[in-house]
């Protein structure tokens, strides 16, 4: 026997191509327990008919790991940036009495619908050399020992998935400011703490002490609040402040 089931409405900001106009479409989704935003987008793809019974197209979105590890499905749900896969509809519905509002991240160029190009973040990672340099593929032997204390400091920073939440919520990361963003600053701090990565620490500090670096941080501390991986980003930003202070003093007075 068919019973009347609850349903909820999702308003999605859509855009057909990178230059196309933005428009909004509503979809009525039958309620099921345990839905997340990605499954909602799958339901829409299976039956792309809007609330006012017009045929539409499946909403384009990124998704990969589906367990908040890759960061691909980051979008703005009810005005709050997060991953679609871990945005449980039961919780999202509690945040609002009206329809669920879904938009792509605003700080990156839209490719289509909810898909954005996060190239700016990867360019920032390149600027701060967010890697450990190795000379070649020959056996270098075992690396330097890392104390458990250092590991405990480094591990949380290594969880960054470059999802874009921190820069989306950062009021300093915008078209008018060259700020590289909290994620890249934190990665610079991570690789400067690495015993092998240290070799490039001055090059990283030089970037942090240049335009777009730590001086462009405004201490709103939104980054640490929205980070889904609970990375201590403000610790990294303050450390970047300390390390660049000392770096510039060393540079001025001589080592």
């Amino acid at each position, binding site marked *: 026997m068919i019973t009347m089931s609850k349903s909820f409405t999702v308003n999605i900001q859509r855009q057909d191509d990178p230059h196309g106009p933005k428009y909004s479409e509503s979809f009525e989704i039958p309620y099921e327990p345990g839905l997340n935003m990605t499954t909602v987008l799958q339901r829409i793809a299976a039956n792309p008919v809007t609330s006012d019974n017009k045929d539409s197209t499946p909403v384009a979105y990124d998704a990969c790991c589906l367990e908040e590890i890759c960061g691909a499905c980051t979008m703005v749900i009810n005005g709050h940036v997060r991953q679609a896969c871990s945005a449980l509809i039961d919780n999202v519905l509690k945040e609002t009495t009206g329809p669920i509002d879904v938009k792509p991240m605003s700080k990156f160029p839209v490719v289509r619908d909810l898909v954005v190009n996060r190239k700016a973040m990867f360019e920032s990672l390149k600027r701060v050399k967010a890697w450990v340099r190795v000379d070649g593929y020959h056996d270098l032997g075992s690396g330097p020992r890392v104390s458990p204390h250092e590991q405990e400091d480094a591990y949380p920073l290594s969880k960054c998935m470059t999802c874009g939440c921190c820069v989306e919520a950062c009021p300093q990361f915008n078209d008018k*400011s060259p700020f590289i963003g909290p994620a890249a600053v934190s990665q610079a701090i991570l690789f400067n703490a690495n015993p092998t990565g240290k070799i490039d620490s001055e090059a990283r500090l030089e970037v942090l*002490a240049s335009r777009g670096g730590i001086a462009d941080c405004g*201490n709103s*501390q939104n980054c640490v609040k929205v980070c889904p991986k609970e990375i201590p980003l403000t610790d990294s930003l303050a450390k970047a402040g300390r390390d660049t202070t000392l770096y510039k003093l060393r540079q001025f007075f001589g080592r």
Partner: protein
Amino acid sequence: MAHPTESVSLQDKNYFLMRRLHSLLGLVPVGAFLCVHLLTNSTVLAPGVAGGEFQKSVERIHALGPLLVPVEIVFIFLPLLFHSLLGFQIVFNSESNAQQYRYGGNIRYMLQRTTGILAFVFIFYHIWQMHWFGKPLGGGAFELHDAAGAATGAMTTAVAIQQAWWIAPVYAIGVLSCVFHLANGLWTSLITWGITIRPSSQRTAGYVCAAFGIILAIAGMGALTGFYNYDVKSPPPVVGDGHASATSQGL
């Protein structure tokens, strides 16, 4: 798009240094001056002859004589101008989202920029109204002595404050903006310079800066209340008979 010019690249090249200078100048001398200024002005509440203690404090400052103007320009006006100009650029380069993300830190971020603009407008209004700079433009109310050498510091200030009903509220908003901007700026500067790193130390610093701001706000509001309630009808009290000649001659 802004056309890349020589000055832009020069600014980009020295941006880190300029921002650290901006931070430093906001604390010393500008912030330090605000503390001295508000504490000095709060002496108008001191018991005894109304404005007597205040007059003595101001005369100590004016004892610098002809050096006072260069000291004011080099140690207050120029640092304040640099702090303001770079501050405006910081405001214009930020996009506050405090409506969307209502975290305490984000609201303080927005308030820091708002109070910066309010403080800028207020300070220039205040300088015009009180300082001799403002005289050609109809301001310049503050006089330490009248023609006869009698003490009128508190008197002239009080007259200027009581001139219209809206002046005292404007002063309250202006002074509180300056105090918030300094107290919150002190908190962020501890992060900027890398002194407080962990959330726990930043929280402790937050309490200290809040206490500092509250004390300074009380001093400022006390001073304002003192001038607002100052009896401008009675003749100015005469104190410090020798000071008048000392200040006019300078050091």
